[in-house]
């Protein structure tokens, strides 16, 4: 699915990623854990093509297409979806309008007809009820005045509507209560199948109690220093990260 090779990236001339190698095959869920400032969110942003960051070397490929130089929207259309850590508000732009525009941009790219308003609405309503959200959610402005939980649920609603190939969850579990956490996990589990991949960036084990990862990566100072199974998560919860430092 996604192959990252020797990726180095910087912001304002400060190098953050110092050679990331990583591959997530279709059907797998990978997790990245690490301290604050280790470069986890930078990696998520660089995968999505955020132009605030400069890629200094290395490459990112989606299904053998090199996307390192691709624009943000073309990567999105190639199947990359970022669940934002802090989704931004866009006042006056309705959720339904935004979501349908996004969906139809993807459908157009895939050579499909645009989805009409009615079909879209029925789809969206079904997802909303699974997320425990009211239909009126669609009439609100994007993330405008949303609670923390609503913002994250809105991201999951978009994930399930757009149905991308790779979902990158940037600390989606931060600041959620148990119920909201379960709802988010339920959404991610509904999304994942053998044809797509998930990359979860998190500080905590709690989301991983609901979503079982295939591979866990530990990141320190812009590098992946350890990869393994769920037992790594337990070790970090118990011992922190200092044992990884040489």
């Amino acid at each position, binding site marked *: 699915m996604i192959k990252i090779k020797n990726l180095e990236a910087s912001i304002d001339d400060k190098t953050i990623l110092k050679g990331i190698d990583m591959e997530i095959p279709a059907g797998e869920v990978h997790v990245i854990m690490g301290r604050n400032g280790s470069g986890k969110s930078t990696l998520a942003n660089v995968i*999505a*093509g*955020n*132009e*605030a960051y400069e890629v200094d070397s290395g490459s990112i490929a989606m299904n053998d297409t090199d996307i390192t130089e691709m*624009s*943000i*929207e073309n990567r*999105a*259309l190639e199947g990359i*979806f*970022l669940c*934002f850590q802090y*989704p*931004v508000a*866009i*006042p*006056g*732009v309705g959720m339904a*309008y*935004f979501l349908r*525009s*996004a969906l139809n*941009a*993807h459908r157009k*790219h895939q050579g499909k007809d645009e989805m009409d308003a009615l079909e879209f609405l029925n789809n969206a309503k079904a997802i909303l009820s699974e997320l425990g959200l009211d239909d009126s959610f669609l009439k609100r*402005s994007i993330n405008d005045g949303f609670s923390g939980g609503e913002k994250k649920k809105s991201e999951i609603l*978009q994930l399930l509507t*757009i149905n991308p190939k790779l979902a990158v969850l940037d600390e989606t579990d931060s600041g959620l209560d148990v119920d909201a956490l379960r709802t988010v996990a339920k959404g991610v589990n509904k999304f994942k199948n053998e044809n797509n991949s998930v990359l979860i960036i998190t500080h905590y084990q709690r989301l991983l109690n609901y979503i079982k990862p295939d591979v866990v990566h530990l990141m320190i100072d812009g590098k992946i220093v350890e990869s393994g199974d769920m037992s790594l998560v337990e070790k970090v919860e118990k011992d922190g990260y200092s044992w990884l430092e040489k």
Partner: protein
Amino acid sequence: MVDKNQQVIDKTLEQEYKYGFTTDVDQTKFEPGLDEEVIAKLSKIKNEPEWLLEWRLKAFKNWKKMSEPTWAKIDYEPIDYQALSYYAAPKQKKNDSLDDVDPEILETYNKLGISLDEQKRLEGVAVDAVFDSVSIATTFKDELAKHGVIFCSFSEAVQDHPELIKKYLGSVIPATDNYFAALNSAVFSDGSFVYIPKGVRCPMELSTYFRINATNTGQFERTLIIADEGSYVSYLEGCTAPMRDENQLHAACVELVAHKDATIKYSTIQNWFSGDKDGKGGIYNFVTKRGNCLGDNSKISWTQVETGSAITWKYPSVIMQGDNSVGEFYSVAVTKNKQQADTGTKMIHIGKNTKSTIITKGISAGEGQNTYRGGVKILKNAENAQNFSQCDSILIGDKCGAHTFPYIDVKNPSAKMEHEATTSSIGEDQLFYCNQRGIKLDDAVSMIVNGFCKEVFEELPMEFAVEAKQLIEVTLENSVG
């Protein structure tokens, strides 16, 4: 990203104005220059009664004593009023049948997307078309007459309804009101006249389409709308002009009178030529618009979408004279290239329990300068007056500017005032968010700007809201990279 933004902003500025064509038509045009004789000649062509000529001459006498206002935040070369022609008209006289209108002119309106053919016209919208100094056609007159509604050119109204003109002309904007209003009063040529009788809800939208075609000609239209007791009317004006290297002057006056329980909703979509990317050419738009809520429980609502003109100087205002009357001003003003807009409103509370709302959205791109200037005045006897003002500005790029000058003058302690103002840039984070969802940059910009303007667009009649939205999209195409 910033560099790329700049490149695309620069690209936008090179975009052509869609309505910049000229129409080749036989015309009668005065030689440049302005004096009593020119005014007398104009008045004679229009077969005006003696009192109206005197009114014009009095206005002209006053105008000569006045000086051009300099308080606005706009910068332009002095206007040579003697170098302008004060009358230009297609040679054909206005006729009742469209068959008699010069086909070139009909074609002009077709190109502008305004069909004067009633069959093809949007259902429920009557149009008065003003070409340079004269009205060339008014549609749906018969249909409207059945309801007692008068909708005709100002010149016709002078002939057919002189008593109404005499009673109301200058009753809201006195001939001596300000420099540009005085000039207009002296030389106005045509415009629209509307009278809605008691208790009538006007059965269709009324609309006037202004087109400046001739060179070196000022357009000085005069519009007068009277809504008698308990009536309702929704009126819309649209404006375009050819691309010309020299600046053209447009100094209009619009007067609205709302009697007891009457409502007037006045919407403008102004898209005059704004000049080229170097700021050459474009319309100087100096307009006085004012409504009087004369009767109790009356309401006047202004909605404007201003995207054109090199200079916009415009403050549609409401005098709330009747008790419980309501004044509203909703505005979207876009400036790009070297456009300058100094626009806003004045709300004057005289009656008891009067209420006003001001919502403005300024959008600046390129080197555009956008100024909101608004005054709210609560007079001594205006018990329990209320005002809510919200002035938001958005900046696209780093060479433009947004300025806000609110003036508040409260003479009655029971007044309740609220004022909010924000200025923001289109956020890179908002664009990133939209792009990440597969939405292209241009679409993202228009989505964000339209969201920003939503409260104002919601006030426009349905058909025009769509037009306004598209106009913003075209105007801002490629403005961010």
